[in-house]
């Protein structure tokens, strides 16, 4: 039996959750965009700019050595989170940069004229646009993976699409940032590998809700962001199989990624350093380390148990709101996207904001999915284990306020 979380105590450790917005205690339901930062992460970042304030991997003095050790420890922490080893962990600015780096490496080594890259319709733009940028100059095509009318992967049709040939890579989100549903990554990876394709997974939405085992997922490349796992902005993680990283050429040049530099040409370090040119995000890495420690100390089983309760409470409440249409689900994650009749999501979001309720509105960087569902935009309420029942009630009360101002949906 998992011990229930002391949500009130944990919320007290997260400064942003105690602020007011327009005279109301904030009801933060935008975790899928960015998670609020706990005090321990703020302290770790302050430490990086305090006693550990030095550049890493290049100084012989004590402060640099200490900062380098802390930076290396962060990489090791991330590796344990992904059940892998540190040499396969590249720090980036975020998931977007990680996916761009992956597309760059795969394009350089595998994309040829007629190559195909298959991408999920649930993808965030960061899982699609880099392939378009990298594919077009090489004559490669980017195609949508077959899916059901509700946006879920159609595995039978996907198998046929893969067997049509020339598939260099498959890219999917581990969990949709709109629907909050998981993709059957393991099954898809097996199909992709059967035709020799590289399997790329965007774990930006999945990482805050569970430690990830890249071996069990069966993927070849995986990316996630620090700020969505309660860490700082400005840091992300790219994990890729060593065999891939060793073949990929550098994508940015500068200090720290080189072995020898001559005007005639340069040689490059082994991964992961080859892909981290210049001063890396040191403070952000230390903050990410602290965030993962914080989540681990809370306990993943307890987090997941609490998030199931929050998800069920969210969906149960929203199902009872007159005129509200939930996007297909139910979600695996504690989130829900919806429309409120004729009311525009931006108007809904602004009126909720007047009551301190923070939700995301728009297309959530997922145009293809919205197009498939025949929607211009939606409202997304995304919670976490820190979300209380009272907050879910305030969301519903806020939707009543929307009806009062704008009329019946």
């Amino acid at each position, binding site marked *: 039996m998992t011990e229930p979380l002391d949500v009130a105590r944990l919320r007290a450790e997260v400064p942003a959750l105690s602020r007011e917005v*327009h*005279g109301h205690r904030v009801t933060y339901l935008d975790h899928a965009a960015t998670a609020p930062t706990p005090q321990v992460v703020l302290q770790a970042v302050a430490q990086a700019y305090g006693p550990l304030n030095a550049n890493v991997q290049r100084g012989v003095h004590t402060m640099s050595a200490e900062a380098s050790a802390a930076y290396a420890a962060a990489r090791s922490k991330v590796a344990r989170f992904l059940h892998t080893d540190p040499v396969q962990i590249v720090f980036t600015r975020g998931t977007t940069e990680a996916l761009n780096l992956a597309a760059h490496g795969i394009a350089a080594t595998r994309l040829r004229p007629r190559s195909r890259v298959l991408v999920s319709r649930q993808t965030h733009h960061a899982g699609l646009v880099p392939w378009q940028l990298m594919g077009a100059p090489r004559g490669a095509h980017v195609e949508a993976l077959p899916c059901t009318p509700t946006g879920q992967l159609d595995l039978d049709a996907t198998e046929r699409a893969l067997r049509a040939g020339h598939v260099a890579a498959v890219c999917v989100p581990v969990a949709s940032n709109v629907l909050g549903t998981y993709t059957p990554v393991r099954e898809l990876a097996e199909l992709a590998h059967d035709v020799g394709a590289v399997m790329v997974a965007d774990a930006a939405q999945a990482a805050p809700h569970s430690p990830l085992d890249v071996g069990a997922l069966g993927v070849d490349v995986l990316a996630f962001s620090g700020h969505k796992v309660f860490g700082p902005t400005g840091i992300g993680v790219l994990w890729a199989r060593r065999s891939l990283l060793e073949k990929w050429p550098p994508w940015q040049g500068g200090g720290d990624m080189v072995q020898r530099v001559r005007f005639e040409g340069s040689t490059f370090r082994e991964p992961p350093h080859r892909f981290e040119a210049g001063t890396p995000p040191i403070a952000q890495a230390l903050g990410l380390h602290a965030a993962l420690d914080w989540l681990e100390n809370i306990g993943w089983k307890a987090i997941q148990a609490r998030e199931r309760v929050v998800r069920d409470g969210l969906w149960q409440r929203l199902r009872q709101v007159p005129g509200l249409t939930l996007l297909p689900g139910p979600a695996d994650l504690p989130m829900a996207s919806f429309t409120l009749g004729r009311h*525009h*999501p*931006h*108007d809904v979001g*602004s*009126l909720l*904001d*007047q009551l301190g309720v923070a939700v995301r*509105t*728009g*297309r959530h960087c997922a145009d293809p999915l*919205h197009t498939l569902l025949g929607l*211009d*935009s939606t409202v997304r309420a995304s919670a976490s284990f820190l979300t209380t029942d009272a907050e879910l009630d305030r969301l519903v009360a806020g939707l009543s306020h929307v009806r009062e*101002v*704008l009329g019946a949906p």
Partner: protein
Amino acid sequence: MPLDRVTLYSAEVLAHARSPHGTAPIGLVRQSVEVDNPLCGDQVRLSIGLTQDGTLAVSQQTRGCALCGASASWMAHQVHGIPPDSAWTQSHEITEALSNLAPLPLLIPRPLHPLFSGLHTAPARRGCVRLPWDALKLALTQDGVRA
């Protein structure tokens, strides 16, 4: 609730959104443009022409939120029948003031005052109000009113 938060969705804004001005077709169309908000898919279709006395005639069709719809309606009301050069100046002033790069707090440009004085409480919505004026500026620029 403080007044400044109520005024974002004032009765006037909602009235414009529900019963927009300037949706009737115009006679001789000189330019037609279509602009979109990539964040939400809102769309403004705008046609401009000239009346017999050389003033501006506009026709707008807007699919969007209440603020975008009200802004399009207000714009049509404001610029219909004024010299094209004056309309361009207004559109320029508004699009510059509501640019995503404009410093905060927002300074609401005078032509928007009667309706959108509450916009400074929700600066993330400036793009919604700006979109019809982006369309107008584009149409006038394409028509050679200003480079």
